[in-house]
């Protein structure tokens, strides 16, 4: 192979010739180019100077149309400058001749004689195009106006002749110098470089089977070759030394391996070694015995290893393994997991290992130890359980298991933060058992503890699941109520608690009456810190004690009054249901354009024996809050449906019966069956009915409400969305609701048509109903202008005092009759 390569002698020869030849060629080229450029610069500079003067000289002749005069001057100038041609583009003459410019001048012919320039002579044109230099100069008059152009063309004839001679001379010089240089270099290289190198090569040829020379090489020649000889000699020495070292290392390695094997066999940990190229997993016998297997019993595949993991851990273990590989073995891989033993129970194993990677990032090998950490893990779990127990004890009352003062304070503070953020209210009930001390003193602490436990159970029944009940100590309990709609809602809870606690406690055969006093403070009305709320609830509690115990008091007297009123009204409502004190009134719904009664809306009225007619605004919210509204609605529904059938039997054209429906109904499981039984019992056709639901209520729980509305729709009952515009319906929900009618709330109608905002809202609601294909009805019509407004904007159906206030059934019967009479009269009028 090496013999086919050219010798250093030949290589140096070629390099020398090429280098010297190349440099000389470059030098010749550079010299010619710079000489040419120099000559060219002289020529152009001279030409430009003389042409400025020439242009000035002939400008007057051009202005005077003296073409012949300037042509003579140009011919002389050309003769003088030895140029190729001078051409004048005379704009003045051109203008007269209808040309862009009159082109004339002087040019050399083939014999280098000056002749007149003829623009039509193609040979002259070709000559100009091949000119090697041209310069154009404008001809201007004194005022700076351009009269024409003067163009000088130069031939490279003389320049070329001069350069040819120069090039020839340079070439001969270069060749001679090159030859001398090459010969001198040859002699020097041969004696100074090649001979010492040859001696080194000769010494290297005497070598052993591994190609290592037997002897050191001779040292001679210039510094680099001597250095080469030194280096070679050092290398020969070093190789010899390395061979001896390698033999020593081999022996050490053998000892090391022996030590490692002994260690692996002696340790409690199991070794694993995963060759990722062959996918072969080695594990030491210790790993197998760790899991109750005999050595060699487990297959040596990673799949077999994975099979020992709990199935739910496999995916995570594989994921973490991959994640470690993606880090290219950064740090140590460590994971603790369970593995099934041969007997089928589980051991906690920690795997620690490290991977080796190829340069391209491919993992090659993954090696580590398995350690049985079952014992340690169990200890940790016990520790955690103890910690949780301590935490629980620190936050809970040991006797009742309720939150203690610490936990309650913490929850109260958190609740205050939430209420502040949501702009909601919360109530704190401070409960003190009324006769606990006497019982404790007379019957002993055990009985006292039993009372406290029973009281705890009763209190838990009296509160909502989301409320927090705590025992602060002794016979003091607190209840935290969040998400309060009205302050009075807390009184309902207090009332429940009072009732629960009023019943006798049976302790060791004793019938004991304990009772309690409750103080209520409201955030933010009675304090904005946990401390203030608690202090004020405590103060209210003492007020309750002073009021004769077994009652509740708000921190503020007004709230207490309102709460009692409400409680009174609620109990009156319950009585009203059983006493049948509710009466149904009817308000007609009119289609103005067709002059027709399209229906009546059934409205409940409460005829209280003492209070007289109670306003719906007064009792409906309480009925809603207490859930009594469902009973009331059902009564109204039946009463109205019976009345409707009566009217129809009388032959009256009643239209639809609109019934208000609280969404509270939807929470009753028997709602649909109650509707069906009312239909069956009264004999009403579902198509005659229309249920009105309020937008606000529906949007409180849209998904459930819409589902219920669909069931009503399936029965064939029409649905209307009441008070539309006062809530915040999503259009998406609106589309999903099976409603057929929108009612414009009277609050938007009251100031029509003067209030621009109300007018805009009404128009928008009408447009929305039209675009969704819904019927539309406006409530609260009191004036003709309001009706005109609605008609003008496409709402024909209205309801309100303008036509009639809500009427009792008998009056409504009269209204029907007289309306039909009017219509008949109008028909025949």
């Amino acid at each position, binding site marked *: 192979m090496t013999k086919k390569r050219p010798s250093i002698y030949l290589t140096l020869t070629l390099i020398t010739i090429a280098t010297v030849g190349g440099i000389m060629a470059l030098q010749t080229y550079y010299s010619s180019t710079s000489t040419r450029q120099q000559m060219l610069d002289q020529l152009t500079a001279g030409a430009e100077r003389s042409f400025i003067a020439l242009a000035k000289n002939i400008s007057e002749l051009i202005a005077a149309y003296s073409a*012949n005069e300037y042509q003579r001057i140009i011919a002389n100038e050309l003769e003088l400058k030895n140029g190729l041609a001078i051409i004048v583009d005379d704009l003045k*003459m051109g203008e*007269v001749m209808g040309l862009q410019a009159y082109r004339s001048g002087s040019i050399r012919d083939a014999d280098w004689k000056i002749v007149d320039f003829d623009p039509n002579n193609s040979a002259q044109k070709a000559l100009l195009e091949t000119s090697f230099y041209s310069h154009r100069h404008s001809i201007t008059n004194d005022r700076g106006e351009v009269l024409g152009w003067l163009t000088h063309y130069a031939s490279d004839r003389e320049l070329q002749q001069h350069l040819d001679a120069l090039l020839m001379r340079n070439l001969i010089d270069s060749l001679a110098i090159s030859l001398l240089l090459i010969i001198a270099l040859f002699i020097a290289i041969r004696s100074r470089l090649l001979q010492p190198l040859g001696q080194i090569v000769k010494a290297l040829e005497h070598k052993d089977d591994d190609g290592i020379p037997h002897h050191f090489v001779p040292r001679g020649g210039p510094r680099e070759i001597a250095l080469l000889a030194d280096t070679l000699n050092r290398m020969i020495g070093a190789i010899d030394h390395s061979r001896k070292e390698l033999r020593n290392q081999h022996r050490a390695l053998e000892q090391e391996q022996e030590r490692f094997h002994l260690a692996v066999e002696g340790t409690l940990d199991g070794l694993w070694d995963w060759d990722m190229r062959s996918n072969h997993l080695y594990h030491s016998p210790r790993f197998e015995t760790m899991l109750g297997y005999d050595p060699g019993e487990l297959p040596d595949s990673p799949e077999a290893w994975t099979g020992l993991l709990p199935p739910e851990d496999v995916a995570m273990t594989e994921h973490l393994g991959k994640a470690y590989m993606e880090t290219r073995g950064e740090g140590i891989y460590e994971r603790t997991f369970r593995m099934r033993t041969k007997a089928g129970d589980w051991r906690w194993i920690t795997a620690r290992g490290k991977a080796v990677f190829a340069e391209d990032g491919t993992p090659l090998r993954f090696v580590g130890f398995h350690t049985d950490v079952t014992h340690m893990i169990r200890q940790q779990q016990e520790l955690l359980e103890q910690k949780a127990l301590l935490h629980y004890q620190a936050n809970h009352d040991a006797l009742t298991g309720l939150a203690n003062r610490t936990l309650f304070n913490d929850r109260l503070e958190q609740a205050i933060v939430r209420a502040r953020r949501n702009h909601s209210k919360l109530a704190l009930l401070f409960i003190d058992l009324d006769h606990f001390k006497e019982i404790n003193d007379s019957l002993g602490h055990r009985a006292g503890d039993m009372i406290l436990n029973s009281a705890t159970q009763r209190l838990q029944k009296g509160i909502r699941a989301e409320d927090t009940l705590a025992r602060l100590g002794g016979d003091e309990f607190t209840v935290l109520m969040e998400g309060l709609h009205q302050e009075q809602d807390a009184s309902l809870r207090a009332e429940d608690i009072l009732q629960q606690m009023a019943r006798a406690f049976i302790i060791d055969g004793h019938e004991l009456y304990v009772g309690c006093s409750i103080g209520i403070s409201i955030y933010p009305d009675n304090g904005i810190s946990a401390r203030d709320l608690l202090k004020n609830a405590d103060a209210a509690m003492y007020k309750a004690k002073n009021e004769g115990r077994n009652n509740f008091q708000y921190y503020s007297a007004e709230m207490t009054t309102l709460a009692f009123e409400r409680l009174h009204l609620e109990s009156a409502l319950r009585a009203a249901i059983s006493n049948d004190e509710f009466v149904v009134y009817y308000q007609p719904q009119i289609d103005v354009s067709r002059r027709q009664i399209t229906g009546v809306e059934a409205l409940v009225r409460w005829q209280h024996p003492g209070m007289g007619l109670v306003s719906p605004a007064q009792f409906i919210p309480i009925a809603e809050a207490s859930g009594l509204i469902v009973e009331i609605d059902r009564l109204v529904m039946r009463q109205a449906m019976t009345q409707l059938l009566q009217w129809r039997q009388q032959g009256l054209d009643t239209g639809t019966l609109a019934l208000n429906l609280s969404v509270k109904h939807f929470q009753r499981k028997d709602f649909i069956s109650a509707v069906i039984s009312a239909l069956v019992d009264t004999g009403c056709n579902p198509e005659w009915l229309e249920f009105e639901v309020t937008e606000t209520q529906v949007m409180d729980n849209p998904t459930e409400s819409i589902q219920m509305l669909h069931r009503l729709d399936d029965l064939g009952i029409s649905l209307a969305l009441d008070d539309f515009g006062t809530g915040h319906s999503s259009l998406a929900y609106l589309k999903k609701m099976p409603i057929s009618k929108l009612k414009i709330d009277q609050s938007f109608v009251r100031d029509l048509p003067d209030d621009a905002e109300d007018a805009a809202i009404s128009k928008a609601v009408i447009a929305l109903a039209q675009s969704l294909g819904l019927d539309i009805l406006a409530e609260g019509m009191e004036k003709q202008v309001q009706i005109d407004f609605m008609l003008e904007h496409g709402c024909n159906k209205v309801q309100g005092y303008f036509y009639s206030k809500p009427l009792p059934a008998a009056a409504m019967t009269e209204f029907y009759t007289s309306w039909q009479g009017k219509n008949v009269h109008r028909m025949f009028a």
Partner: protein
Amino acid sequence: MTMEGLFRRIHTAMIDRRVMRFYLGFFLLLSFVFIPAQASAEEPLGASKRLAYLVSDIRIPFWAIMARGIQHSAASQGFSVEVMSADNTAKLELENSVKAIRRKVDGIILSPTNSSAGATLLKLAAQAKIPVVVADIGADSGSYVSYISSDNAEGAYLIGRILAERMHDLGWQDGRVGIIAIPQKRENGQARTSGFMRALEEAGIKGADLRQQVDFSHQETYRFSRELIQAHADLRALWLQGSDRYQAALEAIRDSGKEGQILLICFDAEPEFLDLIPQGALVGAAMQQPFLMGQMAVESLQRHLQGEPVERLQQLPILAVSADNIDQQLPLIRRNVLGLLP
């Protein structure tokens, strides 16, 4: 010479000189006003050849008369001719040339504003392959069919001899002759001076001094004349190489108090000369023959167009007129100098 004498002399021609002067003035007016219109009236019919006469300034009588000679000759040859005056401006002259070349006339007669402009016009015509005959004022270079000019040297020589004879007759042969010359850069100026000086030398009369006209104004001629008279006490004659400023020279002689002591002789002719020469106010004048020159130009072109050879240079004799020969020369003067046809 009295008015009666003059009357008698021209009687043979049946024309009163006053009548003739009237005609001359009238003709000049006519030529000035009507020549372009007349030319356009002579637009070619059928295959008749069309010529263009490019003239430096038709307002100058000499050129107007030559134009008439051209038109006269062209009419008889069946040519139409368009006279295009440059009004002595280079631009208009160039425009006229371009116009003629564009119209593809069959031949051009050229009296350029100067010989240099003539060279340019000849070049343009040569490029359009239109034959050109140059009349009176030559061209610096260029190719043409023929160049017709007056034999200035011979004319000057003849007039020089007339002056010399007159000075001998008066016994003033020792007196000197001052020359108010046209620019000697001009070929005709040189020819006139050399011809005249040859005649003086032959007669042994010495020349005094030579002043070259620059602006050809009345005032300039008057000044030059006064300077020559004042500088040379023995000055006996002034030779004016032109004709139109003769009045200035006469005034200078009179104002110098040398009336009757210094003779005046001119080159070229003015209508007044027909009176002044017989009266003796002028010794004589060398008269060119513009009408004849025009005729010859047309004939030369016609020969060339027919393929006949034409002499490249043609020189016309100049009439040397003195009181002694004015009667014999009158028919020639009327026709060839003044362009008046019987």
